[in-house]
């Protein structure tokens, strides 16, 4: 889902940079209160998400997928530190490995480090509260829904950004009509797998170390 250079117009690129830097900047400011244990958790999760994103699975039907991990980061670390962990991953991917464009880094952070993280966190908390916590598989169900919908929304937003760029640059006048529904559809389908992985990881971590899940506090 990493948007490369050349897909966005300057206005969309600048606007998404401003929003993303403001939110990640605020997350950094908040994280100045963190201690060594929390710092280690942020970096450990960043490292695992970075490596998990390198493990791409081919999907029958003509596409591929890897874990994005935004919802997982938000649920495990809380939305601010989760956004920071995802921003670390995306900045290193962009600057060191050219995975995602440098002009689109703001948009990529907005989609995967902010929308995906915050939505994942909010959805997880909501579902856990709605379903009684004694219900078996509650973490899996909440993680599934959070991972699924957060990826669908992040993909939809990427489609919106690309569609708006097409409109502003007069590429194809109907580009929004292609990019928005296509990205929404594909990421809603692939989101089931993102959600399943998110739910499985949360079930495992919850069974071993229930206190580390920030989304349950």
């Amino acid at each position: 889902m990493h948007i490369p250079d050349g897909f966005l117009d300057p206005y969309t690129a600048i606007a998404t940079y401003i929003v993303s830097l403001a939110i990640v900047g605020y997350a950094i400011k908040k994280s100045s209160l963190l201690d060594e244990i929390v710092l280690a958790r942020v970096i450990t999760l960043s490292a695992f998400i970075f490596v998990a994103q390198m493990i791409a699975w081919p999907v029958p039907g003509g596409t591929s997928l890897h874990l994005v991990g935004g919802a997982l980061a938000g649920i495990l670390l809380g939305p601010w530190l989760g956004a920071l962990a995802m921003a670390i991953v995306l900045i290193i991917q962009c600057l060191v490995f050219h995975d995602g464009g440098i002009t689109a880094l703001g948009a990529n952070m907005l989609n995967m480090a902010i929308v995906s993280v915050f939505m994942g966190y909010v959805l997880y908390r909501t579902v856990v509260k709605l379903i009684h916590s004694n219900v078996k598989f509650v973490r899996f169900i909440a993680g599934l829904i959070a991972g699924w919908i957060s990826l669908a929304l992040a993909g939809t937003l990427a489609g919106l950004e690309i569609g708006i760029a097409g409109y502003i640059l007069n590429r194809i006048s109907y580009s929004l009509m292609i990019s928005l529904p296509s990205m929404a559809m594909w990421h809603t389908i692939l989101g089931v797998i993102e959600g399943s992985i998110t739910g499985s990881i949360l079930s495992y971590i919850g069974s071993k170390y229930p206190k580390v899940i920030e989304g349950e506090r």
Partner: protein
Amino acid sequence: MSRRHIYLLIALIVISPVFGVYLANLVGYHEPLDIIAEELGLSEAEFNWTPLKDYMVPGLPEWLGYILTGIIGVSIMLLLEAIVRHFILRKNK
């Protein structure tokens, strides 16, 4: 980061070329974004700032470059952790 986490990360990095290189080349890796780019006729702008583009190391086979870039990425994060711990957390104490 605990030693157990580092061992697990190394194991995942070592197996990653099976998915990120072998299977990706076998099936022709493309994400939904690539499908939309094809439909809209979008192409990536041709400028580069890193020798490690697409998780490859010049002169090395793809699979080895993939492993090496995985190690480089994780090492940068560990370096970042060490810098923050040294300069910021110590200052806060």
